[in-house]
């Protein structure tokens, strides 16, 4: 399955035009966003701040490129660090809350950050940044212009694949098991001496670091960064994709993102009716497959080791 997906992903630029190649790039970035978002969900929390933390990475890349002429690798690292640092600061007040209160807290924090971007000209104000030049590599005479959509797609694919491997390993490490324990049996975890707030903080910061990387990829993909791109609207979409895909398994959110983005794209013919059609179909999916596409496919049995179909789900955990 993974091999088939990988082959299909690599074939995109050879069979599709510029538009579908860049759309596939956007899907790859979204997959990274969803997979990193799932880390927060693993601890039993849902957040509205993840998209803004992606924005922190994107804005860092824009400033690094525009003001300091930084290269792509440096921007990538800087974007990740800045997003993680902001998450670390935010986590101090936010992680004193749980469940619905945490969700509302992340909403407020996200709006405050977006307001900063709009108000201060250092961040480009309402206009944001444009003209972020695409990476250009010169390896001893071999030059690659990543301004070409196919080249940038492969660069994105490589970065996202590396991140997914890291996330996969992280989930299977002791840390990942602790996160799952906190989500399923929070009080029990505390009773055996696990500092749940500390582990939730670690999850929030690590997720932000990957969201920052996704933000840097996004900034280079579009050559621009605007505050509107990181609005509540996009945060809601991220949440919907995660819920519809299913968050119990590593692949659930990935499938959710790919299927729903592709589906949304396929509805372009409906023009102004598209959001309505999309909404109706989402409602139908939630009615008939409330536990996400992963349950429909039956992946919990394949990949969700240790998670039975009857596994308890906390009230905050949702899907």
């Amino acid at each position, binding site marked *: 399955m993974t091999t088939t997906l990988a082959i299909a992903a690599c074939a995109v630029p050879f069979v599709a035009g510029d*538009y579908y190649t860049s759309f596939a790039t956007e899907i790859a970035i979204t997959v990274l966003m969803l997979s990193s978002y799932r880390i927060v969900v693993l601890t039993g929390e849902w957040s509205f701040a993840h998209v803004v933390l992606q924005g922190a990475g994107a804005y860092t890349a824009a400033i690094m490129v*525009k003001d300091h002429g930084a290269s792509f690798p440096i921007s990538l690292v800087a974007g990740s660090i800045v997003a993680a640092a902001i998450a670390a600061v935010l986590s101090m007040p936010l992680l004193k809350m749980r469940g619905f209160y945490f969700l509302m807290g992340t909403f407020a924090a996200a709006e405050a950050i977006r307001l900063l971007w709009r108000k201060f000209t250092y961040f480009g104000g309402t206009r944001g940044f444009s003209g972020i030049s695409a990476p250009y590599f010169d390896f001893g005479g071999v030059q690659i212009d990543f301004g070409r959509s196919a080249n940038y797609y492969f660069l994105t694919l490589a970065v996202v694949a590396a991140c997914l491997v890291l996330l996969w390993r992280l989930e299977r490490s002791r840390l990942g098991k602790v996160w799952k324990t906190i989500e399923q049996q929070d009080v029990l975890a505390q009773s055996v001496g696990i500092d749940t707030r500390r582990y939730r903080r670690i999850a929030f910061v690590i997720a932000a670091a990957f969201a920052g990387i996704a933000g840097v990829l996004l900034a280079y993909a579009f050559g621009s960064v605007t505050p*509107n791109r990181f609005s509540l609207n996009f945060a809601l979409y991220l949440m919907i994709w995660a819920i519809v895909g299913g968050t119990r398994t590593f692949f659930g959110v990935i499938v959710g993102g790919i299927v729903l983005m592709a589906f949304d794209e396929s509805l372009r013919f409906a*023009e*102004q009716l598209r959001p309505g059609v999309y909404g109706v179909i989402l409602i139908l999916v939630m009615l008939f497959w409330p536990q996400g596409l992963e349950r429909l496919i039956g992946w919990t049995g394949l990949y969700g080791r240790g998670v039975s179909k009857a596994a308890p789900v906390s009230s905050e955990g949702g899907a």
Partner: protein
Amino acid sequence: MSRINLHLTRRQALVGAVATTSALAMPSVLRAANKIVKVGALAPLTGDLALWGIPAKNGAEVWANQVNKTGGINVKGERYDVQVVSFDGAYVAEKTLQGARAFVDQDVKYTMVIGGDDWSALQDFSNRNKMLTSTLYVSDLNPTSKYLLAPVEVHPFYFGLGVEYLRKVEPNLKTAALCAQDDITGRTSLAYWRAGFDAHGFEIVSDAYFDNSTTDFAPIVSSMLQAKPDTVCIDTTYPSVALLLVEQLFTQGYKGRILHAGLELLPDMVARTSKEFMEGSIAFFPRFDDPNINASANGFSDAAGFYKQFEKQFPKQWNNTSWEFPGCLEVWKQGVETAGTFEPDDLLASLKANPPKHIFGAARWWGKELFGIDNALVGNWPIVAVKNGSVEIVEIGDQAAWFEAHKAIVEKRFREEKLMPDQKR
């Protein structure tokens, strides 16, 4: 029930089949005589700004149908039918860029955007792919936007004319209150309005931006009215927001002129307030059923006929942008037919050498001194006022002349908002 017996010989059947097939195929055979050229409407078709995007796209389709009926576009003796393709950019820069990519894949020769927030991601792509594009926002222009034209509306350059007109008809007004949402559209608009009020001796007594997500406008309006303004400018707020602001102004007892670029939802405004309340409000977009439209929009082929056709094809959907994309297409058509090519570099050179007719008459290429590039076709622009619940053209003004007379003030107000090309990051 009676039964009909049909007896046909083999020859009769063959002749019948050939005749039927020919009749069915004839329209497409006739249509196939012309080649196809694609133009793209890259506009918000969903969300709050769909009220601008959908009429613009629909207008482009009506225009294309009319042009195709009269023989299409003539390029060095070859006839081309115009096909409009569209993409929902949702007024988000990144989505709009995706649309531009789709258009390049489809070999679209000319793209039309609303402008403002949706242009920012497009520029590099536009230069890289020589994507000839039109915007309705002159402030999108900058020294490197080589393939971007503002061939019809040069928002916000007509606002100065509005204040000039207001001063003329209401010489005793002294103060103005302004508000708009905090984004490129709002900031560009208010910067120009401020210059207008400065130039014509108004004192600005209240001046505020509100967040895009604002839904309760009562505090914003009460704050404005506390300063007791003689006139209130709510421009350029988005149509649904303008409606709520007008409703609040009415509820809170405001009595005076209202200024707004489009007054797109004027019938709803009248319904929620009164004809008397809206009387005298100033805007800048005539309806094409205005009795003076053919004389005013003399750069547009049969404006009144276009309105009738639009109403037939899209009943009760007419809006300000319905004629703006068609206006952009008229300029492009003139350019293509003069240059004899769709190739963007040659077409641009030809357009510059032979300035086409602007929708409201003669115009010239302008923009270098403020935006670093002469890609705005600046001509006359109408001022409309609300009379008995509908807008009517009250004056036609020269946008470039107004700017020339007040350019120092405009530049000062633009600099305050960091809108000058050298201030953009």
